[in-house]
């Protein structure tokens, strides 16, 4: 849960890497996949055919600065 030794109140306690890693890999991959669908799906590359996802998030994609059309 925490580092083994107790640190005085002013010292930040860092979180061990082995505790972060599984969360970082799994949640990080899911987050990147979500960003891909908002930012790039049915643009340069497409997992699903058609243009519905592209058209639905169209305004967000333009305003969030992703290359579009």
């Amino acid at each position, binding site marked *: 849960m925490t580092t083994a030794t107790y640190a005085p109140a002013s010292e930040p306690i860092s979180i061990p890497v082995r505790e972060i890693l599984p969360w970082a890999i799994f949640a*990080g991959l899911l987050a990147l996949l979500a960003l891909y669908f908002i930012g790039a799906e049915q643009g340069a590359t497409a997992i699903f055919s058609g243009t519905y996802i592209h058209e639905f998030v169209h305004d967000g994609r333009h305003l969030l600065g992703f*290359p579009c059309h």
Partner: protein
Amino acid sequence: MVRSLLIRGMLVGVLAGLLTFAFARVFGEPQIDLAIGFEDHVHHMAGEAAEPELVSRQVQSTFGLLTGVLVYGCALGGIFSLVFTYAYGRIGKLSPRGTAALLAIAGFVAVILVPQIKYPANPPSIGNPETIGERTALYFAMTVISLIAMVAAYNAGRGLLSRLGGWNAALAGAAVYVLVVAVAMVVLPPVNEVPAEFSAVLLWNFRIASIGMQIVMWATLGLGFGALSVAALAKQRQGAASRQSHRPV
């Protein structure tokens, strides 16, 4: 600990998405409508039929936009919190709020500001569909280079800390970032597909609205997550302290 910080990050991300949506409705949507008006005008003058609407403008500018910024905010908030769990306690003795604020500034500069200077956001009617693959690759390449340069700059500054002192080490780190990014900007090819007749004022307003949305997004992430992480980390500290005091003597 990681779990509770990740949840807070995603919650703050959703809040950031909502605020960004409100900002985009007021400052972004009018520019999109004007740009689509320009596009329709061009089609009309060329004697072509307007593009059929698969998703109506009404849906695009409300639920579509909301979905886009909420998912973006939630994902970004999650990633932000995970970077925070690693950075906290490892970049000097910064408080949770200081760590979150510093990460938000560095993230905004590396992921948004600098890539957008090279490849700025474009409203509808700008951009050749045939070059979308190349433009997407260049945009993400610039973003990745900028992120790597930011990490390298931090490490360089960190390494020089004992020799140069805090101020000059930070300056040296910043110089590393600027140098790497400047080389990338010179080497990567430019993209300019703005039609000659497109309104310069509209283009400016659109890009300012786009950057404004990102400022709302990252400021909410940095300040909001900083505030929430204080409570979460205090609980962790209490847990550590009580385990310590309950240990049999």
